[in-house]
């Protein structure tokens, strides 16, 4: 079963009825996908539809619980990434999986065996081999150059060259055009077409519908881990695809549709926020009592934008006006002083100090409120305990006591601890970045309730979520981001899952 399959062109890779369960999540629920030699297959689906898991199954990174993979009718087990390479599969991941400190040539032949003489690498031969495949791709990259000096587009080409050097017969590209310019995208498509014409099977995963129509021959749509549509690209229309991606049934169990009073005060105005290559000229306003959603696909720049507003990163340009007063925000401290707080996406690395107790986590941003005596910068544990105990009860954080280290808490409870530390900070603007990510249904409800409560107190809430139904249910208004820009705005009854998906996927 190891990588000894002959390097001849494969005809079909058939994935049948793949099921993959993770604790509490059904990532794949009977997925069927067929890739054929000499054809480009577009693979579509919302964030969380199961595309990444499917790729991991094909790459041998995870093993499916049920289902089969058949290559030219022969059932095959892809036991490891090494076996996947041996079977002729090559992957170009969205996050580049190359070795930046090695040269282009070393990356092209990485893991394929370097030409050696007496145990020493024959550099000239190695470079010649790399030059050969790079020429086939019609890119001018010096094989001797270190990879770290290359652009993202060039690095993707090196990854494809690696696949060619491995004599791969199926390429799987995950969002290959992310952060590429139009010219680079065109060149990539040209390369893919010529590979296809040589008989290679290509799986092209993308959120960009226009590209799907430009480059693919067939298209498969996944939703909630299932394959819901497969067909020739020429025979479907964009609206049909969008309908397949969203699903016809839209669970719009509307939680709230509050209308803001006309005179609601403007809490936050953001103008011309920019960070070259990441965020372009983003501007919006947030009013008191408003729950503002921020929709977009992964990589659209939502997290990056709120990190600029909350001082976690520094913007290259832009104005932030809080309650009519322009504030210079160059650090999280500045943002806190202006009344803006961020609950970051990754609570383990950015939100909580896991070695700290619940009490110490909760009081960290506002230590001066818990002093033994006002001028003395020494915390009173009694006061800290009382305040954190109070918040633990209010937020229903499940811990035996507030001295429990945060690392022993479940994900949902950690999220609540991160929330608790900002709740009493007196901030006006709360930014929640994927607050329900990885927590159970009950926990999600509690997070929605909290955000609603904050809004009802007259604060402003910005809510980032990749689950659009959440935004539909919770928000007064939703902004859509695409490629680092704010491109659309929906308010009140115009907010719907279909509208958000259509907006996110259009080009």
């Amino acid at each position, binding site marked *: 079963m190891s990588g000894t399959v002959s390097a001849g062109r494969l005809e079909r890779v058939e994935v049948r009825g793949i099921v993959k369960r993770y604790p509490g999540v059904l990532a794949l629920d009977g997925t069927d996908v067929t890739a054929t030699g000499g054809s480009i297959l577009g693979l579509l689906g919302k964030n969380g539809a199961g595309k990444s898991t499917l790729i991991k199954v094909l790459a041998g990174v995870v093993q499916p619980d049920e289902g089969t993979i058949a290559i030219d009718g022969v059932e095959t087990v892809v036991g490891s990434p090494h076996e996947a390479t041996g079977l002729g599969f090559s992957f170009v991941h969205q996050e580049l999986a190359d070795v930046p400190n090695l040269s282009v040539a070393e990356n092209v032949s990485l893991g394929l065996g370097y030409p050696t003489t007496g145990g020493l690498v024959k550099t000239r031969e190695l470079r010649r081999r790399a030059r050969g495949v790079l020429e086939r791709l019609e890119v001018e990259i010096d094989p001797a150059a270190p990879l770290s000096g290359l652009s993202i587009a060039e690095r993707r080409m090196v990854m494809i060259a690696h696949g060619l050097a491995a004599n791969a017969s199926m390429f799987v590209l995950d969002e290959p055009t992310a952060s590429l310019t139009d010219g680079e995208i065109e060149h990539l498509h040209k390369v893919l077409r010529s590979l296809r014409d040589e008989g290679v099977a290509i799986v092209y995963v993308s959120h960009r519908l226009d590209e799907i129509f430009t480059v693919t021959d067939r298209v498969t749509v996944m939703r909630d881990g299932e394959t819901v549509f497969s067909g020739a690209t020429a025979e479907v229309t964009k609206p049909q695809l969008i309908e397949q991606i969203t699903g016809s049934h839209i669970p719009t169990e509307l939680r709230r549709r509050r209308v803001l009073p006309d005179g609601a005060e403007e809490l936050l105005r953001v103008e011309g926020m920019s960070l070259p290559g990441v965020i372009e000229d983003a501007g919006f306003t947030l009013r008191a009592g408003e729950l503002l959603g921020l929709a977009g696909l992964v990589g659209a720049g939502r997290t990056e934008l709120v990190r600029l507003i*909350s001082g*976690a990163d520094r913007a290259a340009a832009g104005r932030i006006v809080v309650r009519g007063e322009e504030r210079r925000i160059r*650090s*999280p*401290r500045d943002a*806190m002083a202006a009344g803006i707080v*961020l609950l*970051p996406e990754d609570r383990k*690395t*950015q*939100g*909580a*100090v*896991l*070695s*700290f*107790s619940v009490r*110490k986590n909760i009081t*960290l*941003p506002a*230590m*001066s409120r818990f*002093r033994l005596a006002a001028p003395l*910068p*020494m*915390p009173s544990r009694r006061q800290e305990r009382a305040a954190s105990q109070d918040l633990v009860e209010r937020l229903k954080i499940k811990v*035996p*006591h507030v*001295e*429990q*280290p945060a*690392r*022993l808490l479940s994900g949902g409870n950690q999220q609540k601890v991160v929330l608790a*530390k900002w709740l009493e900070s007196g901030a006006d603007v709360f930014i929640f970045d994927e607050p329900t990510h990885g927590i159970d249904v009950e926990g999600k409800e509690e997070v929605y309730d909290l955000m609603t409560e904050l809004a009802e107190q007259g604060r402003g809430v910005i809510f980032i979520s990749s689950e659009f139904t959440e935004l539909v249910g919770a928000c007064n208004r939703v902004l859509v981001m695409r490629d680092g820009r704010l491109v659309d705005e929906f308010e009140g009854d115009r907010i719907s899952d279909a509208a958000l998906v259509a907006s996110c996927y259009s080009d």
Partner: protein
Amino acid sequence: MSDNVPISTAELERRPTVGGVVDEPATSSERWTGIASKYGLLIAFLITIVVFSLARPSAFPTGRNVESILTNAAPAMIIAVGLTVVLVMQDFDLSFGGMIGLASGASTAFMVKYGWPWQLALVAALGFGLLAGVLNGYMIAYLGGSSFIITLAMGTVLTGVEFAFTSQNTVYDGIAPGFAQIASGQFLGLSNQIWIAAVIALLIWVLLDRSEIGRYMYAIGGNSEAARLSGVRVLPLRVLGFVIVGLAAAVVGILIVSQSSSYAPNGGTPYLLPAFAAAFLGAAVFRPGEFNLLGTVVGVLFLGVIQTGLTMLNLQTFVINLVQGGILVVAVLVSRLGARSR
């Protein structure tokens, strides 16, 4: 490559520990490993004292010997508690050996070579400590250098400056009596060195365990990005850590010259290992897996007791080395094993 050592040590310190799990129902064996891991070092310390007292009843458990152990341990105590501050923030400082030497050499040169009043020489030595700390901190926190490499290099630079002052000559004459009095004088029947070490340890204990700054420092060590996003001024606090080490090293350098009324080149290097050993031993007691001030104090005293006790037993040097090293390893491992069982 340059980051490997501090990071791997940091990883070691981040392992799940017993100290935090208080309320979970524990079986009696778990409770014993809990106690072993939390107080193992303290128990080993007490046993060592008892063993030496039984072996040398007339010499070891005496007031005079206690004072001698404390006096000898004072310089190591000062530098180890200073070092604990940077370790808490997951930084390293290997430059203090060189800084101790520079403070010795500079204060001697100012008094002997340039004829400054000893008070001024003292202030100048402390000034060097401050400066070295600021430089270390700036290069590491603001410019992003690896604390391991930067301080290693800084230690060499400081030793170079020391030699520029003294040309590596040993100096026996010309140390001002007032200066000598700092370390050799007494207060309330105890050596000034004991008092100085006690006051510095107390100040740093208040800083780390009782002040907001200390809480922030532990937050930086636990998760510096979360601390930054919570509004903690991460960079200045990291600089402060290096400044504290620099000042502590300067104090030690001054005490060494003062104690002996003489200067010998490169006097700081012998303190490197004991200071780290004490801090790491200390991270194995009270709050296992976390550097803490009381633990460091116990670590320093433990090392001092072993040193004195073994010397009193008139053992051969190689036996002293074996026993000293062996006790350290066992003490740390007992705590580690207990901590890992969770």
